[in-house]
């Protein structure tokens, strides 16, 4: 038989109704719930910083699809949430993303493979692209992020692919083969989805910002 778990709020309500919980007179019930949840919440580690690189370009237009129809390469879908270190979602965060094309080239004259996204009310973001090529000046495939949210430190980082052949299947140990990767946390698993007619790579990348 499945046992229904009580939420913290329900548990507090039951305790209050049974007289087993006494609220301090200065706190409302909602404040007490919030305080309990806050005290129990484990802080999240901020997403590691990684250098911005030379090809950031401001003013990228909003687009949920970075590649154009007919572009070669493995289709890629990336999603995630923007959070603060207390685990609270950050809605309305500005997320600037740029990457090399599947041929390993950055577009400096236009905005190909560049976008500016905004996290939704649940802090979520997602976009489609193609797997970036190996840029000749770097060891590993990567995607750049610059995230800004009011009241928080800007996050500059890069996302790497666990399937990158450079890692030889062991990114936890081999991530230092790219001297620009300072933290293995930035190397994320790649799931293959779809069928033989529509295969694509799926990744998730949570973005955790520090408060100012």
């Amino acid at each position, binding site marked *: 038989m499945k046992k229904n778990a009580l939420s913290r709020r329900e548990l507090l309500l039951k305790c209050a109704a049974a007289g087993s919980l006494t609220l301090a007179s200065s706190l409302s019930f909602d404040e007490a719930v919030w305080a309990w949840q806050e005290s129990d919440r484990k802080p999240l580690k901020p997403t590691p910083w990684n250098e*911005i690189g*030379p*090809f950031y370009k401001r003013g990228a237009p909003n687009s949920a699809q970075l590649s154009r129809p007919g572009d070669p390469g493995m289709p890629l879908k990336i999603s995630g949430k923007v959070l603060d270190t207390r685990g609270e979602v950050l809605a309305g965060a500005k997320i600037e993303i740029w990457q090399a094309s599947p041929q*390993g*080239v950055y577009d*400096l004259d236009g905005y190909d493979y560049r976008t500016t996204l905004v996290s939704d009310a649940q802090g979520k973001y997602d976009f489609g692209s193609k797997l970036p090529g190996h840029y*000749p000046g770097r060891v590993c495939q990567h995607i750049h992020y610059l995230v800004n949210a009011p009241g928080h430190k800007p996050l500059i980082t890069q996302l790497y692919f666990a399937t990158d052949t450079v890692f030889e299947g062991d990114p936890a140990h081999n991530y230092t083969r790219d*001297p620009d990767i*300072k933290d293995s946390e930035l190397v994320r698993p790649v799931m293959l989805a779809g069928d033989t007619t529509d295969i694509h790579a799926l990744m998730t990348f949570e973005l955790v910002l520090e408060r100012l």
Partner: protein
Amino acid sequence: MTLRCVLTIALAGCFSSTAAAQGLASSPQAKTQTIALSAAATSGALSPEADNAAVASNDKKLRLWNLADGHLLHTIELPGADIEFTAISPGGRFIVTSDAAGNVVLWNAETGKSQFQLGLPHPPSASAFSADGKILAIAPASQPIQFFDVATGRKLWETTAVTGGTAALAFSRDGASIASADTDTVVRIYDAHSGKLIAENRDFLLEPLAVDFTVDGKQVIAAGADKVIAFIDASNGKLVRKLAKLDQPVSWSGLKVSPDGAHFATVCMTAENLGKPRPVEMWSIATGQKQSEWMPPSVIRAVGWTHDGQLVSVGGTANSLLIWRIQ
């Protein structure tokens, strides 16, 4: 980015001049000098007067070379991890090093002793000494620019933070101002005596990667990933003029004004492949016209002017320092 200072590049054939083919004013030649390194280089720097070069190697030694005669001036024992950032003061008296963790040391080259040490959150992405060598400006990646008294190590002031930090720094010749090429695509000019912002220019869409002042300090010349060379009024940040668009970005710190103030030199990167060499180009400040260019056999890592107006370019392999004096 570590690539700009790591001397690990491959030689690729002989140099040739393309100036004649393009109808440029002159067709320079380059005198080549090679300094053999006894251990693989991890980082290197050219002094502001282009007379010395410092090389940190994986044998835990920092060596200062006199480029005029290839003489080894000083060797300093390095503790800790490999060095990935190096800079030299005017006159070669002090050398800054940093490892990947941001452990910065200012070395007195003559004594081989540490003048002061800093624990920065990230290694520097740029640094500059004032012309008199008394003030050191350091920009750790993604952090404000910090100013230090070289003699005492005392922190003097710091600028306000900008997103992403700073790619290049240059003091004016009189030491009154400092210009920064910032990764948020803005060129900023600060009062070097207070760190207070004087002016900023927001005309770049991509990152400016190189800045220098004209000799009179009235204008800043900036260039970078936009492939544009811009002259900026140092007092108000307004664009004075832009030169014709380049076909490649100007590289990190790849823009230097000559001591007589008549010319400046640029070094571009090949954006599609940073390991592919690009020519060193010389421009007239008065006309904005390119006067000559010289194609190096391998990637140039630093460029500078000697006091007598000779243009020096430095590159290398892991085990050699290559110096080209462009005639």
